[in-house]
């Protein structure tokens, strides 16, 4: 995984073949744990999505796909689905663009570059719930230092009530999600860029290539795999972002920041409509499985 590491020679001999009993014994605790606390809950939620439930989440009547039909009839549900999609798309695009720009800046050698790199990691290194709370305070319309600084710098005369209005709330909250995601993108792109041979760039200079040509013909193809895998992961993480939204707005005002993940939580633990929560959890499970499967395929392809 790190630079100096080599893969162990996978020799076949007595070492690999004879002791599979021991292998199963070693794997037993972790696998049983995953079966009980991960696989069983998923199966349970799939079953629950086919039942009528009471306020305590107890399954009462088998109703087949009625929960699904009920939910699909609600306009709000489709709005939430749509919002989840453009929440994810917008955030991932901005994270990728911003991360790429920062990586290009950090790829230039100068004194103090390591310090800059370290400082840029901090939004990712910090605790996400704590950051979300800090941002709530930063955005405070009267006592927040963001509005004060914007006014003092003459950028905005009357800054919006960031978290108070539907449009501004959506953009305020998505920015926090983006802000947390930028460092990862930057680090990964930077690692990719640094593995590209310098000879390629020197040859390009000899051929008279300009900065844009170098970027599109050398840098971008050079980090293609990294770009793909980082984007996939970013899609998963962004789609799953519960903490930022729940802590900052709880999906409001008037549902303007509600995405599938927060909607599931609200249905289940605030409105006590467990069956609908379960239906949406199943939908989320299917979506995530598809993306995770693509990631896994890609990961193994690269490993081998």
């Amino acid at each position: 995984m790190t630079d100096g590491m080599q893969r162990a020679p996978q020799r076949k001999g007595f070492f690999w073949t004879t002791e599979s009993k021991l292998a199963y014994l070693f794997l037993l605790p972790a696998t049983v744990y995953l079966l009980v606390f991960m696989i069983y809950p998923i199966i349970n939620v799939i079953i629950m999505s086919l039942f009528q439930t009471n306020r305590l989440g107890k399954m009462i009547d088998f109703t087949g796909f009625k929960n699904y039909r009920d939910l699909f009839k609600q306009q709000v549900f489709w709005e939430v689905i749509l919002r989840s999609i453009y929440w994810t798309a917008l955030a991932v695009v901005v994270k990728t663009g911003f991360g790429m720009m920062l990586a290009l800046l950090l790829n230039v050698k100068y004194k103090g570059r390591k310090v800059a790199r370290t400082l840029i990691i901090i939004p990712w290194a910090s605790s996400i719930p704590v950051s979300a709370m800090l941002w709530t305070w930063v955005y405070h319309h009267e006592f927040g230092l963001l509005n004060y600084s914007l006014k003092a710098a003459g950028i905005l005369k009357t800054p919006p009530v960031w978290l108070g209005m539907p449009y501004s709330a959506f953009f305020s909250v998505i920015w926090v999600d983006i802000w947390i995601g930028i460092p990862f993108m930057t680090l990964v792109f930077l690692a990719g860029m640094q593995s590209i041979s310098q000879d390629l760039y020197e040859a390009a200079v000899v051929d008279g290539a300009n900065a844009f040509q170098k970027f599109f013909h050398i840098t971008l193809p050079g980090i293609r795999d990294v770009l793909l895998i980082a984007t996939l992961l970013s899609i998963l993480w962004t789609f799953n972002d519960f903490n930022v939204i729940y802590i900052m707005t709880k999906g409001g005002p008037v549902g303007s920041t509600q995405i599938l993940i927060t909607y599931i939580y609200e249905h289940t633990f605030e409105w006590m409509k467990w069956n609908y929560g379960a239906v949406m959890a199943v939908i989320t499970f299917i979506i995530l499985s598809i993306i995770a499967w693509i990631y896994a395929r890609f990961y193994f392809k690269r490993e081998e």
Partner: protein
Amino acid sequence: MKRQKAIKPLVIVWTVIIVIFLLFPFFVMISTMLKSGNEVYSSPPYWIPKKIAFSNFIKIWTQHPFAIYFRNSFIIAAGTTILTTILCVPAAYAVSRFRFFGRKLLLYMYLVVQMFSPIIVVIALFKIIARLHLLDTYLGLILVNTVFTLSFVTWMLSGYFKTIPVDIEEAALIDGCTRIQTIIRIMIPIAAPGLVTTIIYSFIASWNEFMFALTLVQSVAKTPLTLGLYNFVGRYRTQWEFLTASAFLAIIPIIVLFLLIEKQLVAGIVGGAVKG
């Protein structure tokens, strides 16, 4: 090369601007945590406190239950880390050293499962934890937190074990060591840097956990830091000077730990792609 030199100052200026831009909320945090309550709620606000109020750092321990929150977070994070390590070391060893039926499938499962959102399972986990009478207990939170550290740690650790040459172990086995002895005396010491990375990772992940705590904890006595701070925000007039002071204390150790493992973490997540 000449052009490289010409753009360098420009690059540095832009990097500095972006760094300041990205660290903005932390500047706000530092400014607020050094103000008194009255200064925090003055309109218009200002950056530099008129009188530096270090007393905030004393008050959070004496007037508010932050000491309890810190203790709870520590117990839960330490518990999760220990449980994760105990479960993952043998599993990671088996995945990296043995060939057996279902190995590939298991690897896929571990990789896919770590991508899942806790929201998928929280509905059923709530019922399981309630049935086990573990709502509002440390053990309940430790059990659910471990679900999400387990697969990633197994995955990372198996990568480290793979890098250790098989020959070393074979020699020990021929010399009469048992398999368990070779793991304890040879594999773990050699893989120690990797083990430290995964231990730090588990600790950070559960220290920062919020949703399970929100769902499974009811009393102040069991509330971890993230939830405790969140409950603090919900009030009519949030005492931001205390909140930012606690936030500062909560994130500094986490940031330092994170910076120690950041390189290995990125390498583990992205896998073969960075090697180029």
